[in-house]
Each structure stands twice: as C-alpha cells, then as structure tokens.
C-alpha cells in the first residue's frame, strides 16, 4: 500500500529530520511507530498524506508514485489521518456536520451522508452527541469525534497520531475496540507501549533520523 524510499525532509530552519528512511506497509498490517519527541513521526505521516513535500526520496502509495498535489487527492480519499491534536481536526460547529464534511467532499448524496453519520455515531458510541458543539466537548469526546470524522470516509488504511494520549481507560478501550473490529490496516504513533502491544503486529522505532524494526518485547525493556 505505502512504500517510502530514502525519504528525507528539511525543516524551514535547515534542519534535516531523517537520514533517508525506508518504510513500507502492506494491506492488513498493523504497525506501531515509536520514538522520542521530535524524531519526525508526525512529519512522516504528513509526508505520506502530501501535507508536506519531501526534500528527497520517493513515495509510492497504492502502486503509484506520488509527487504532485494532484497525486495526493486519491491518497487522501483512501488513507485516513487522525491528527495528534483533535482541535486541529474539528472545525465545524456541530459533531454531525463535522462527520458529514468528509463524505460530502467525496461526493456522497445528502441521504447517504445521513446514513453514514448515524452509523458512525452508533459504532463509536457517539449517539446523542450529534447536535453538540464540537469545541465544547471533553477531551475524550473530541478524540472519538475526530476518529469518527476519519472513519466516516471509510478509508482503507489509517494513520493514527497518538490516538489515546491523555485519554481515560474507558475511552482508550473504546478506541482499541474500534481498531480491532473495524480497521485492518493502520500505523499508530504512540508512547503507550501497552496499546502497541495489544493492537500492533509489528513495531518500528524512529530515532536519530533512522527507522528500524524492533521487537515488541524490547519495548518494555528500556
């Protein structure tokens, strides 16, 4: 699905994030991505989604090279990104409208969108919150709504940037349940080793500009 070769990105201040990284994700893989703050995990996600342009290297997604903005249109339709900060994701006045935004952009009819919204809310346990104002929700609710806005587009693959950071156990369990039941291909950035242990088959560590495969067991032996 995703194949990244010798990728690098240079920040406007001239600092390079990677020393040329290779990464690939196949259908059905559940990958955890760990690494210290500032190691470039989020940057990697943003490069895959075409929000940033790499300064070097190649990105192939769904078998095609992705270079221009127009190449990424299809990528964004088929890969869903959950932002690290839910506030970055939600901008519509109500929960319902925010969930409807993506499907509407995909050209779905009003009726289909209504069905998607109610199905999505049902699935993530957001029933009753549809008419709520997004910015007044609690942190956990915001996270679930943000996930709902991504899920509403029914992506084939998810990129989840710290999906459970700062959430209580119950909300974390809801997210884990969602992942195990409804998502089959994803990459999760997280500092929560227990979460990665439970929902990922493969773990990579990004550190000092390099990406390396690590054992799940070695995560706890630090």
């Amino acid at each position: 699905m995703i194949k990244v070769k010798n990728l690098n990105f240079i920040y406007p201040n001239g600092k390079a994030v990677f020393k040329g990284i290779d990464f690939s994700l196949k259908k059905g893989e559940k990958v955890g991505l760990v690494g210290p703050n500032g190691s470039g995990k989020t940057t990697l996600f943003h490069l895959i989604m075409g929000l940033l342009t790499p300064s070097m290297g190649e990105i192939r997604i769904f078998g095609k090279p992705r270079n221009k903005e127009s190449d990424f249109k299809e990528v964004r339709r088929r890969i869903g990104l959950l932002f690290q900060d839910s506030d970055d994701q939600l901008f519509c006045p109500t929960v319902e409208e925010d969930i409807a935004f993506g499907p509407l952009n995909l050209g779905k009819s009003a009726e289909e969108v209504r069905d998607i919204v109610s199905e999505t809310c049902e699935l993530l346990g957001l029933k009753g919150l549809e008419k709520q104002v997004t910015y007044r929700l609690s942190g956990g609710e915001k996270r679930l709504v943000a996930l709902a806005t991504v899920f509403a587009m029914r992506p084939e693959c998810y990129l989840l940037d710290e999906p459970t950071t700062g959430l209580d156990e119950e909300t974390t369990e809801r997210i884990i349940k969602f992942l195990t039941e409804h998502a089959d291909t994803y990459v999760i950035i997280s500092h929560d080793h227990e979460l990665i242990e439970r929902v990922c088959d493969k773990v990579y560590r990004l550190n000092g500009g390099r990406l390396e495969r690590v054992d799940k067991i070695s995560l706890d032996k630090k």
Partner: protein
Amino acid sequence: MHLEEFAEGASLLHRLDPRVKFITLMAFILLTAVVKGLGLPLYALAVSTVLVAVARLPLRKLVNRLAVVNIFVLLLWIFIPFSYPGKELFSLGPLTVSQEGLLYVLSITMKTNAIVLATIAILGTSEIFSLAHALVHLRMPEKLVHLFFFFYRYISVLHEEYIKLKRAMTVRCFTPGTNMHTYRSFAYLVGMLLVRSYERSQRIYQAMLCRGFDGRFPLIRHFALTGKDIIFCILMVSLTVSMAMLVLL
C-alpha cells in the same frame, strides 16, 4: 509567517536606540506629510533613500512592500489628473488633464514613498518587542502599547491555527468550488478561528493572572543612549529642520 524580515541585520540603523528612532521619525514624517510642491518631497525621498542604503535592506523584499503601497497611489494617478482644476495640458476625448493635477499627484507619490521607505528603514530595523518597549518609555498609554504588542504576537499564532484547520480540510478531500458546501465550509473555518482565538486569549489572560499580572508589564531591560544615537539624532533633526526652513523661505 515571518513579519520581522527587515529586523534581521547588523547595520548602523539596526543598532540604534528605538526611542531615538521614534522621535526623529515622527518629526520627519510629519513634515514630509505637510510640505507642498515638488522640491521638498524630492528632498525627503532622497533622505529616505539614503536611510534605506544605510540600513542595507534586502532590495527584493523592499520592492515587494513598496509595490503594495503604490497600488493605492496608482488609483490616485487614475483620478486626480483628470479632476483637479487647473491649466489644461492635453485632453483624452471628453477628459482633460490639468498640469496642476499632474504635479499634485506626482508630489503625493514622492511623499508617500518617502514616508514608507523611512518607516521601513528606521522602524522596520528594530524588533517589535523593543519598539513596544520604547513606546512605554516614551509614555504612550500602556493599554495601547499592549494592544499593539499582543496583536503582533498573536497574528502569527492565528495564522498557524488557520494553516492547521486548512490541513484538516485538505486531508478530508476538500476541494473548493462554487457551491454551498464550499461557502459553508469556509464560513465554518472563519467562525472556528474566531471562537478559538477568543478562547485562547481567555486562557492566556488566565495564565497571566496566575503569574500576578496587574495590567502592567514591568520593564527590566532599559535602553541607554550611546554616541551613535546622539549623532543620528542630530543628523535627522538637522535634516528635518533644514526642510522646515526651506518651507518657510
């Protein structure tokens, strides 16, 4: 977003005391704004050009800024020569161009550019923080100074917030078009920006209160006049005064 692009540098003007800068610039601008004719505006423009040269400003960026100002000046060129009463120079169909009108708009053009160039060369070469600081020292009302400073400080935060929300729209396949969905989405974007900035300002204010804010910023660093400042001050004042004397002649 980078707003202080001219403040980076090490020229003589970059190192001057911002208090001196404010006082000398104000006098210069006031006089330039009121002089008439062509000679004195030209004189002011020459002074500004020298200041720009001394400040060693990046020419490209400077031209970009001047272009913005001169778009407004261009509008004057379209209207004033035709509407100002005076001796007819030539006519384009039913419209006549007056000599006085032409000279008048030429004078405005030179004055405008002189003022903008001088402001960039003198104030643009200081950081906003030290300018705000200088304004407090010059006994400007503190509330106005705070307003100015916070406005500057948070305009780039707001811009960042805007970029983030735009990203959120992009990853969900938003393509702007001429339809209700686009208008509504942009309206939401603007609305959310307003709500967020209001909330953020509340949080910042609370954080300031927690640290004992009582409506005043204590000043720790103080400015000290140096020989350079005094020489610059004398030079600018004498240039301005000589301009004023020429007006009286």
